[in-house]
């Protein structure tokens, strides 16, 4: 039996209690569904002294429509609860289509939206047993002093492996972070840093409480995922996109965001090549190629980096063609 290393466990019932606990325990780590943290703890990638569970925090479990047409998703909702929610099904069908691509049903019944957005970065050299890591020599994200992927450099290249950020960033999502010091709202894209170790622009005591999706009229959005097993795998590549069209079918705004390429979800400015145009297959192919040129995956996930790079063009154009149809 692989057991969890010992930790102190706190179960606040309100957001106020939770923020106070984070202020008091500066090395405490947040946990909600535990589907990402507990496997990492069992592999001794991290061994926090205390965990603060958000499972009982009521404020994180609501979905509300804002007066301005926005939707506020509680970060503590499980992915299954969000997928089944009537308002989400009516207003954000692209999210309802993307959620089943995340993980497996029992894990979606446990894992939360906030947990998915804060998912730890992944790499072939860190997501291994302690024995394996020791045998190969540990890496930067572990206790070592060298990156096993790019030994010449001084940074960790572990990749952003969550499925929902590419889609939600494309949809223009914002997030709210709350701590005892106050609260702030930032675009979801600003939550991430291109650093496999310190991958979140979030202080230890800040709790991600909600995701705010702006009013999205005439927006067509979607997410495509490359993985080896159709049933269950982290993405070897994820492509999220959102396109807005006017009444004449001219593309008014376009966002394409890549996941599993580098340590943060990458918004690709080349998508602007679609704006002001009526979308055609050749135009989309050109933009997809331009995006793939800028994507530089490394050899640290399933499939070769060269194949993953090729697939950036294939998956981007497949998704954009579907949305343009």
């Amino acid at each position, binding site marked *: 039996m692989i057991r969890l290393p*010992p930790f102190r466990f*706190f*179960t606040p019932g309100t957001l106020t209690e939770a923020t106070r606990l984070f202020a008091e325990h500066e090395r405490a780590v947040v946990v909600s569904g535990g*589907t990402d943290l*507990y496997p990492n703890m069992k592999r001794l990638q991290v061994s926090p002294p205390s965990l603060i*569970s958000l499972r009982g925090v009521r404020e994180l479990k609501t979905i509300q429509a804002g007066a301005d047409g926005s939707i506020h998703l509680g970060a503590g909702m499980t992915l299954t609860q969000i997928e089944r929610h009537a308002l989400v099904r009516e207003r954000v069908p692209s999210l309802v289509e993307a959620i089943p691509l995340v993980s497996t*049903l029992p894990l979606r019944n446990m894992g939360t939206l906030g947990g998915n957005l804060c998912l730890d970065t992944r790499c072939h050299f860190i997501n291994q047993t302690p024995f394996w890591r020791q045998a190969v020599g540990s890496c930067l994200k572990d206790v070592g002093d060298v990156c096993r992927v790019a030994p010449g450099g001084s940074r960790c290249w572990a990749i952003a492996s969550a499925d929902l950020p590419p889609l939600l960033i494309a949809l223009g999502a914002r997030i709210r972070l709350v701590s005892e010091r106050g609260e702030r709202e930032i675009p979801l894209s600003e939550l991430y840093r291109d650093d496999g170790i310190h991958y979140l622009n979030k202080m230890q005591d800040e709790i991600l409480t909600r995701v705010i999706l702006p009013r999205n009229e005439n927006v067509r959005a979607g997410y495509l995922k490359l993985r080896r097993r159709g049933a*269950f795998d982290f993405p070897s590549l994820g492509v999220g996109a959102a396109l807005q069209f006017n009444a004449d079918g001219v593309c008014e705004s376009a966002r394409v965001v890549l996941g599993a390429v580098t340590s943060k979800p990458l918004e690709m400015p080349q998508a602007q090549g679609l704006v002001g145009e009526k979308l055609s297959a050749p135009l989309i192919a050109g933009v997809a190629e331009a995006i793939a040129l800028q994507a530089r995956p490394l050899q640290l996930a399933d499939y070769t980096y060269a194949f993953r790079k090729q697939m950036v063009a294939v998956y981007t154009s497949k998704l954009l063609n579907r949305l343009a149809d």
Partner: protein
Amino acid sequence: MSETENVVVTLNVNGETHTVLAPPYETLLETLRERLDLTGTKHGCELGECSACMVLMDGEPVLSCLTLSLEAQGHALTTIEGVAKNGVLTPLQQAYIESGASQCGYCTPAMVLSAQTLLDKNPSPTRQEIRDAIAGNLCRCTGYVQIVDAVELAAKRMRESVEDRVRRET
């Protein structure tokens, strides 16, 4: 509830209440197997990849290897031991035997629970719907065809028995 010493954990498993003393970092899988002797719940990868340890929490599949027993309190838990009533197998369990859906048997308890939650919601699933429902459950004997056969057979029998009852009552 904040120390690493043992805490009192009260679980409702298969309709029975169990109270144990366990450290706060103990998983439901450990409690079920090692304290309650409910070894029908299997430990496979223990990292959330195989779903062999799946149980139902308030009727929904969750993984016991990644659930703290502490956080399973206040929920109705169902393990494979709670599926057959008074020693009588469910139509799904019976169909499982007849279809040869169980080979080494390690994925079977969780697979039966997954399929049962599908049948509870959808009495006539297509083969694709069955495959989707059990997508998280790995069978390393790769006996998926027989498993899907078994779920289909069970669904058919359950529908027929309902139709029979309706016919008799009208």
